[in-house]
């Protein structure tokens, strides 16, 4: 029987060649999305597969949730540096607990010139856990001696112009000299190890002890001791005992108790920290998932999102298959009727059609695999070390079998149900499958809804991107210095004085955080201390003097921060402030807080809400400035306010004199070098920084645009197939209409109108969904476009034009039929 089903399925595929081609193309596209996504995740999820690892090796993950921010990170594969210390004392049965700091860009120098390199500090036991590809030096001893370092061959080429560097010295952060004790080759990707220099941990401890160690990947500022638990400084590796005295399951349970026992609690602190275990190969994916979920404040995992989107594309393809198969039901009614008369049970007919769908899915999958094999050389050339064996892993093969089954069920179930419901007597009389006419239209609507939704969303994104281009510093010579003053051991006032000696430099200022910031610190402000008072979310910035003139922000009311007003400076934690802190707000915040005239805000009191055990904190507005966003993302906020604290300045911004840029840049370099010769100064014009960010946003828009085109192509192919069958089915009706006087043009218009209906309905359904999605997307940004009717109109026009282009040929063919030819055959 199975042979009969397969042979009947092949016969049907051959019978309806064009439909088969459309189905194969659409299913192949959908399957390609899923296979590519699963393959990529499988590749990334098998990190460090090529280097030897110690058995029973895990790393500690951290779940962190900040109640006040309503945000957190889950399964982050990094911990505070002290977690490992407490684990050693609380779990003596662990074979190893080894810490390695996360890679950070450090200034390094081998001579007079300093540059940046990716540096990680590790305990000696690290080299026992991973078999790194040593080219020279002793793998077991390379980090055992104090102030030792292992360098990658590429970094050796870059810093020393040779790989024979054993015994040579490298200066870290302008202070500590370390000796090269090993050189390693490239670690095959994917890997969670991206350092150029692996330095012994005692070096970092010595730098900390001297009180001058730069921060290593700090998280948001926290008061200790929570800092020790919530930070993300280290990767903490643990090796479970070989004797089984502590199993993975037991350790997971005990880690939860460990967090309960060790992490300090404070009723108003609002932070919760807990720990888990993960395998090393999941490091990259866990990092990406954790960061994405935390920064979007959704807890969403990138891996889940990617798989869902890919499955969505496959679902559209399956819907296409179901639509075409249902449209074909009319052409197959007689066959099904005969089978039923001869004795086929309904279940046998359903199985037959599910097998047909499975066969189509299997052929489509083979096409995808064949195409992938052809593309592999290109992928390898792009630097990804993948082979066909990635797809041949048991999990991938299993996934592919499931995919074929999913196509069979999702794509084939409805047509199987429709076809098997054929009434044999009706079939013999020449009647059609009733349900087979309605569902294809529903499915066509579903496909065009997806396409329209994506088209409108893309239009909104592109409109927003062009609006964001207004945030730029084109033609303004404003330069941001990338290095942190604390790391460079520079005093802001000293540097400022030195810079202003140059006649090519117009002004200098400083900020606590980088001035162009995609994840700005936000704060809620209210006009009253009342807990029920309406609050506004605003971007908080801590700045030095001359911030507004340096960044070209005009003063609109009140005054700027002034050296003549010593009480303008706000220092220390807020519970130490002796008077309401002086702030400057921008015009947008003034309006959001209800002031129609900006002058009314001057002298007014605003409040920071109560939190962290502190009461509402009063602030006094001394000035209102022009609204000038310095980044694209506001994460809900569209306004700014500023504190003054020159002592907290970490990042320097310089406005050069226009027309004297080369001289100005040279003077900036010279000033820096004279004060921090061993610390490289990174710099970038604000216009360049914003352009880079714009390019990233454009990429997102392009990616979604590609998806929209994709969805539209699948929907169009589906409509083409449906038009083919519907036109054939209506030949008799068209023949009669022509016999009683209809022109070809009238018939064409009638058919185009009928095929337009599902497209119009789809646009109507997609509109509110796209509107809501667009609105949600726009809340991320500090400048937001208004959503007009234009993107919806464009989507309607585009989908209609595509639909007409696709069905026109079928409609013309049907409309040109000779009535006698059709009616005579009847």
């Amino acid at each position: 029987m199975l042979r009969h089903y397969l042979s009947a399925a092949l016969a049907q595929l051959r019978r309806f060649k064009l439909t088969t081609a459309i189905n194969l193309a659409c299913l192949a596209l959908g399957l390609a999305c899923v296979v590519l996504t699963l393959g990529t995740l499988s590749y990334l999820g098998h990190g460090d597969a090529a280097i030897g690892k110690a058995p029973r090796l895990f790393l500690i993950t951290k779940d962190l949730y900040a109640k006040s921010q309503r945000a957190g990170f889950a399964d982050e594969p990094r911990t505070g540096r002290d977690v490992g210390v407490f684990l050693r004392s609380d779990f003596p049965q662990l074979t190893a607990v080894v810490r390695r700091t996360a890679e950070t860009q450090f200034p390094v120098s081998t001579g007079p010139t300093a540059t940046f390199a990716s540096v990680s500090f590790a305990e000696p036991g690290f080299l026992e856990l991973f078999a790194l590809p040593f080219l020279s030096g002793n793998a077991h001893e390379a980090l055992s001696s104090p102030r030792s370092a292992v360098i990658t061959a590429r970094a050796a080429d870059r810093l020393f112009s040779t790989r024979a560097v054993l015994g040579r010295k490298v200066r870290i952060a302008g202070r500590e000299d370390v000796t090269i004790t090993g050189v390693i080759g490239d670690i095959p990707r994917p890997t969670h190890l991206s350092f150029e220099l692996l330095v012994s941990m005692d070096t970092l401890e010595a730098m900390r002890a001297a009180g001058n160690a730069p921060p290593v990947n700090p998280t948001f500022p926290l008061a200790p001791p929570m800092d020790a638990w919530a930070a993300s400084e280290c990767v903490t590796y643990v090796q479970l005992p070989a004797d089984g005295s502590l199993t993975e399951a037991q350790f997971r349970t005990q880690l939860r108790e460990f967090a309960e026992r060790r992490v300090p609690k404070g009723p108003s602190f609002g932070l919760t920290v807990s720990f888990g275990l993960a395998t090393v190969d999941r490091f990259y994916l866990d990092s990406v998932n954790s960061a994405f979920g935390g920064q979007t404040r959704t807890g969403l995992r990138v891996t889940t999102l990617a798989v869902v989107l890919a499955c969505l594309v496959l679902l559209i393809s399956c819907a296409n298959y179901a639509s075409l198969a249902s449209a074909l039901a009319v052409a197959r009614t007689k066959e099904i009727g005969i089978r039923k008369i001869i004795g086929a049970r309904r279940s046998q007919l359903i199985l037959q059609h599910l097998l047909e769908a499975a066969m189509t899915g299997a052929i489509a999958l083979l096409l995808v695999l064949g195409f992938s094999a052809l593309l592999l050389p290109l992928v390898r050339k792009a630097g990804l070390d993948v082979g066909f064996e990635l797809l041949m892993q048991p999990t991938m093969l299993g996934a592919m079998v499931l995919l074929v089954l999913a196509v069979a069920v999702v794509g084939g179930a409805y047509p199987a149900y429709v076809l098997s419901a054929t009434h044999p007597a009706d079939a013999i009389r020449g009647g059609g499958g009733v349900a087979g006419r309605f569902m294809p239209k529903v499915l066509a609507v579903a496909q065009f809804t997806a396409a329209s939704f994506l088209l409108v969303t893309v239009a909104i994104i592109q409109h927003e991107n062009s609006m964001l281009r207004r945030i730029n510093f084109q033609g303004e010579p404003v330069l941001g210095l990338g290095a942190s003053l604390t790391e460079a051991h520079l005093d802001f006032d000293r540097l400022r004085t030195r810079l202003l000696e140059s006649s090519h430099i117009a002004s200098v200022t400083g900020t606590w955080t980088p001035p162009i910031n995609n994840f700005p610190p936000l704060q809620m402000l209210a006009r009253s201390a009342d807990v029920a008072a309406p609050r506004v979310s605003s971007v908080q910035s801590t700045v030095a003097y001359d911030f507004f003139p340096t960044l070209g922000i005009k003063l609109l009311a009140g005054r700027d921060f002034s050296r003549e007003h010593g009480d303008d400076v706000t220092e220390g934690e807020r519970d130490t402030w002796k008077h309401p802190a002086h702030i400057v707000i921008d015009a947008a915040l003034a309006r959001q807080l209800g002031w129609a005239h900006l002058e009314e805000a001057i002298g007014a009191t605003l409040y920071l809400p109560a939190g962290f055990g502190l009461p509402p904190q009063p602030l006094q507005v001394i000035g209102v400035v022009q609204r000038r966003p310095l980044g694209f993302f506001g994460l809900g906020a569209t306004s700014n306010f500023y504190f003054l604290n020159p002592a907290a300045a970490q990042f320097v911004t310089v406005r050069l004199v226009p027309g004297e840029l080369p001289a100005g840049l040279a003077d900036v370099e010279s000033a820096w070098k004279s004060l921090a010769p061993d610390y490289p100064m990174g710099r970038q014009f604000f216009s360049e920084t914003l352009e880079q960010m714009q390019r990233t946003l454009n990429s997102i828009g392009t990616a979604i645009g590609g998806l929209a085109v994709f969805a539209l192509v699948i929907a169009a192919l589906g409509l083409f197939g449906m038009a083919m069958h519907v036109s054939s089915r209506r030949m008799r009706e068209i023949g009669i209409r022509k016999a009683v006087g209809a022109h070809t043009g009238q018939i064409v218009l009638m058919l185009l109108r009928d095929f337009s209906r599902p497209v119009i309905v789809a646009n109507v359904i997609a509109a509110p969904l796209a509107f809501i999605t667009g609105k949600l997307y726009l809340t991320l940004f500090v400048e937001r476009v208004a959503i007009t009717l234009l993107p919806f109109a464009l989507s309607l026009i585009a989908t209609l034009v595509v639909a007409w282009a696709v069905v026109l040929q079928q409609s013309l063919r049907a409309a040109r039929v000779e009535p006698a030819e059709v009616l005579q055959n009847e």
Partner: protein
Amino acid sequence: MIRLSSVSKVYRVGSIETQALIEVSLAIEAGEFVAITGPSGCGKSTLLNILGMIDAASAGSYRLLDQEVVGQPHAALTELRKRHVGFIFQSFNLIDELTVYENIELPLLYQQMPRARRRNRVREVLELVDLQPRAGHRPAQLSGGQQQRVAVARAVVGDPQLILADEPTGNLDTHHGDEVLGMLETLHRNGATLVMVTHSQQYAARAQRVIRMLDGRVVTEGTEPPVASSPGPQVRSCSATI
């Protein structure tokens, strides 16, 4: 074998009702050859469809082989039909994508007959209808007469007790029509009960009994003297198992 008592069939399309059969009662004994005649639209095919259980009566009783059919679930009717009934249609109703062999084999597949037995039986029936050389051909490659012979083969391959033929000669010329009717007569002589709907008085006269219908009712029933039948040149041997 067949007992119909006051069987009616009403077709409903929206609010419009069409009475296709009105209180039809008749009996057909095992081994009879019955012809059903009447003008177009009188309900002949409807009656045949009800006899073959591919359509359900709206009212009345239908007993087949002492089993009540009306009210039975679809699955049970499918089983009854599969085992006891063979159908032959005016427009042949072969499956175009299957070969002659596969079309004839199809009922045996649904009966889940083992492969070896199935192969032997299909070969036997192919010989009976003299179409062995065409076993690998598709219906589109056959003449009308040949297609109807395939349809006959398919109808009898499962050894049914009841053969229902709806205008089996309607799409054939006289020569091929005689050929097909000869085959049906041979099947009847070998023990099958044969019910044939026909417009042709000549072919109806070859039946043992003729039921005439008009406007959904049986108006007359009668036995006609058998007409000397043309030999069935395509039927090579008469197996008792047919």
